[in-house]
């Protein structure tokens, strides 16, 4: 694919910035607009942009593994965060668990946050799998 040198250079810097931004969006989701869905989508867009500029292969090298593996990973995080109250405290499935003292920036850390992180990974995995698969065989 033919791309301009500007996009190529810019995307190398944009990728970490966008990823950081997506994590920021993910973590603040409980208090302000954002969350796992949007965060995951932004992260995927970051990777897709990178792949357009540098070719699919380089992006895959950065990812280290096939994005498809992120799906079961994220699903397990979400599921385990729902299972934690059952296993640890004998409470019903998906009962919220919360730390007593607020942490800086994030506020109270709870099982819902881990659930959202799981959603984040699933969304990244799903989107990248779809787009990569299609652009590979297109």
């Amino acid at each position: 694919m033919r791309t301009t040198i500007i996009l190529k250079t810019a995307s190398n810097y944009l990728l970490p910035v966008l990823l950081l931004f997506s994590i920021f969006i993910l973590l603040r989701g409980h208090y302000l607009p954002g969350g796992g869905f949007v965060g995951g989508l932004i992260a995927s867009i970051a990777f897709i942009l990178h792949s357009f500029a540098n070719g699919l292969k380089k992006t895959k090298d950065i990812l280290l593994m096939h994005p498809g593996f992120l799906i079961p990973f994220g699903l397990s995080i979400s599921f385990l965060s729902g299972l934690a109250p059952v296993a640890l405290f004998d409470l019903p499935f998906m009962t919220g668990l919360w730390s007593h003292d607020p942490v800086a920036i994030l506020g109270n850390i709870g099982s819902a946050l881990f659930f959202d992180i799981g959603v984040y990974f699933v969304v990244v995995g799903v989107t990248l799998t779809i787009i990569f698969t299609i652009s590979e065989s297109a």
Partner: protein
Amino acid sequence: MEILLAIMIGVLYAAGIYMMLRRSLVKLIIGIILLGNGANLLIFFLGRITKGAPPIIPGDAKVFSEAFADPVPQALILTAIVISFGLQSFAIVLVKRAHTVVRTDDLDEMNATDEDS
């Protein structure tokens, strides 16, 4: 403003259905996407629209003190948007696959579901 929104929803629905009635595969998918957008907007609209009051508890407060937009339709639509992306991508890939196999873009030529016909 409600009237404008209703018009938008109506146009989205009409366009979506019209595109779905065409024989071209690509148009079918565009129709589905338009219809999905229309449905999202309809749910949003039926939950009543509120200006400038997002359902986010302000600053130090623990509960809402003023009016706020209904969060339930928003949560519904948020999931619907993401799911419809999954649906669209699957449909697009299906179309592409069907096209490479059957070598036609015409839905009418794909109507045979059985081996014999």
